[in-house]
């Protein structure tokens, strides 16, 4: 048969057109494509599981050969870090509990309210372009497409395909991954200034009031809390014209006694933006950052957490990472923040799928 025969051209053209048709149907979200994928997954899953069992010794041997040295040094490093963090963890637990109580009192959702399913990572991406993992829980346990996946360190990704007893999770490093986040600037020096005079007319609580309890304030006045300060009474001053809200803590009886003042401008301030993955070799970025005068400049080391909201796929407050680099751009496009993820996506084992769906999707 000649190289450029009519039948040869027809055959190749037909296959190419079929591929293009399939791509078009998939891009339009045709249900037939989803059902075809599900059907193939149903047939393929037993074969895949059998192969996984058979090839596991080879995988383990490969990991043993290639990762032994790294694992050994990592193990030592983690032991050191564990010792360091044990004390900090106990202190943090108390603060987290306080924060959860405050969120509950104010009717704000928090992560503790969201039920979750623990899953094990059973497979990595077979492609060089998609950053996905496969987990061993599926729709049988209530998983749905779009649910956020986390581990102990922070956000891992979102569920993109769900089968009966397994799911595919798109990692936060995937180029298709995007989610609204908040950037929380850390306090450089948490200042509590001490002054010797108080000129405000204030609501004076009992001297025995503990400052860690929620403060009651007049309507319209700023509500601030001062955890960890338990001396004296709590005075909440009215907002000043420059909207510098001040909580003053001082003995109620003496106008000349020392007063501890916490300026809420020194509290962590937040800024919103869109987090986007950029593949395995590039740090993910936060862009389209809203400009906020109070926020000031983003600093390297600022914390990045999910912002939540009615349409976000993840609830508010999941730690994503820290800002490691700020790339300034000209014009109105604003800066781009490079982020180091807190979750190590290359060594995932157990993850937690948050059974959370945004309000707009009809929870």
């Amino acid at each position, binding site marked *: *048969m*000649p*190289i450029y025969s009519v*039948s*040869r051209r027809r*055959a*190749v053209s037909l*296959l*190419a057109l*079929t*591929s*293009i*048709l*399939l*791509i078009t*149907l*998939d*891009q339009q979200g045709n249900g037939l*494509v989803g059902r*075809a*994928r599900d059907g*193939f*997954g149903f047939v*393929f899953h037993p*074969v*895949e599981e*059998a*192969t*996984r069992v058979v*090839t596991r010794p*080879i*995988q383990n041997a*490969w*990991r043993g050969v290639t990762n032994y040295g790294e694992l050994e040094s990592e193990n030592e490093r983690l032991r050191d870090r564990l010792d360091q963090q044990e004390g900090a963890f106990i202190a943090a637990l108390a603060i987290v509990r306080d924060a959860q109580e405050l969120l509950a009192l104010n009717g704000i959702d928090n992560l503790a309210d969201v039920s979750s399913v623990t899953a094990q990572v059973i*497979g*990595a*991406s*077979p*492609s*060089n*372009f*998609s950053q*996905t993992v*496969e987990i061993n829980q599926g729709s049988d346990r209530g998983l749905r497409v779009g649910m956020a996946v986390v581990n102990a360190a922070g956000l891992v990704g979102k569920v*993109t*395909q769900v089968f009966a007893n397994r799911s*595919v999770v*798109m990692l936060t490093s995937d*180029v*298709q991954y995007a989610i609204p986040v908040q950037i929380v600037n850390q306090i450089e020096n948490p200042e509590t200034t001490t002054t010797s005079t108080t000129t405000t007319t204030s609501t004076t609580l009992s001297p025995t009031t503990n400052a860690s309890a929620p403060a009651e304030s007049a309507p319209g006045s700023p509500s601030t809390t001062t955890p960890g300060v338990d001396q004296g009474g709590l005075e909440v001053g009215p907002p000043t014209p420059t909207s510098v809200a001040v909580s003053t803590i001082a003995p109620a009886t003496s106008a000349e006694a020392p007063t501890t003042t916490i300026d809420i401008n020194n509290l962590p301030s937040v800024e919103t933006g869109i987090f986007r*993955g*950029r*593949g*395995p*070799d*590039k740090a993910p970025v936060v862009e389209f950052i809203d400009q906020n005068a109070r926020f000031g400049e983003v600093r390297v080391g600022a914390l990045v957490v999910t912002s939540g909201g009615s349409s976000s796929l993840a609830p508010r407050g999941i730690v994503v990472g820290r800002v490691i680099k700020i790339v300034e751009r000209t014009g109105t496009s604003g800066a781009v923040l490079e982020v180091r993820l807190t979750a190590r996506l290359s060594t995932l084992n157990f993850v937690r799928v948050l059974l959370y769906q945004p309000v707009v999707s009809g929870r």
Partner: protein
Amino acid sequence: MIDLVNRPLVRLLMVGLPALALQTTLLSELTPFGIVIQMMLCMSIGAGVAAGPEGGALAGFVLGLMFDFVLTSPLGLSALVYGLCGFAGGFAFSTSLANPRWLNAVTCAGLSATAMFVQPVAANWIGVEGWISARLVKVMIVVAIFNGIASYVVVPTMRWCLAVRRLQRLAPPSEVFL
């Protein structure tokens, strides 16, 4: 029953399904230099080398479609690229009189690198952005080397798969006599 097993499409599925399982389990974990080896692509090109352009295109399409079903990328993208690679593999084979193994390896390596470049470009055309990066060069090199080596096993396997008879294989292509 034997007749059924002897059909090329049945054989292709019989080999393709375990190969896909290997791709999603073992090969996704064994990542030399952080790159996933593309066995399904190697088989598509091997099919072309073994059975000519039509056989290669059809086998590449089927294998690519199977791979698409387990990926999150658009369905049909791998089918399109692998089908074209199968066709190109067959085209390279049909133009050569002799068919030494080293030539198969070179063909597999070259087409693998090309496919690894074409796939993100095609993805970019249909709106999947971000696949084109500096890492692509590394992906092309590693996949090309490993697929070139794998061709020594894959081409004979695909020859059996597509039921290419020995005489047919050894005979020079018909266009030589035209």
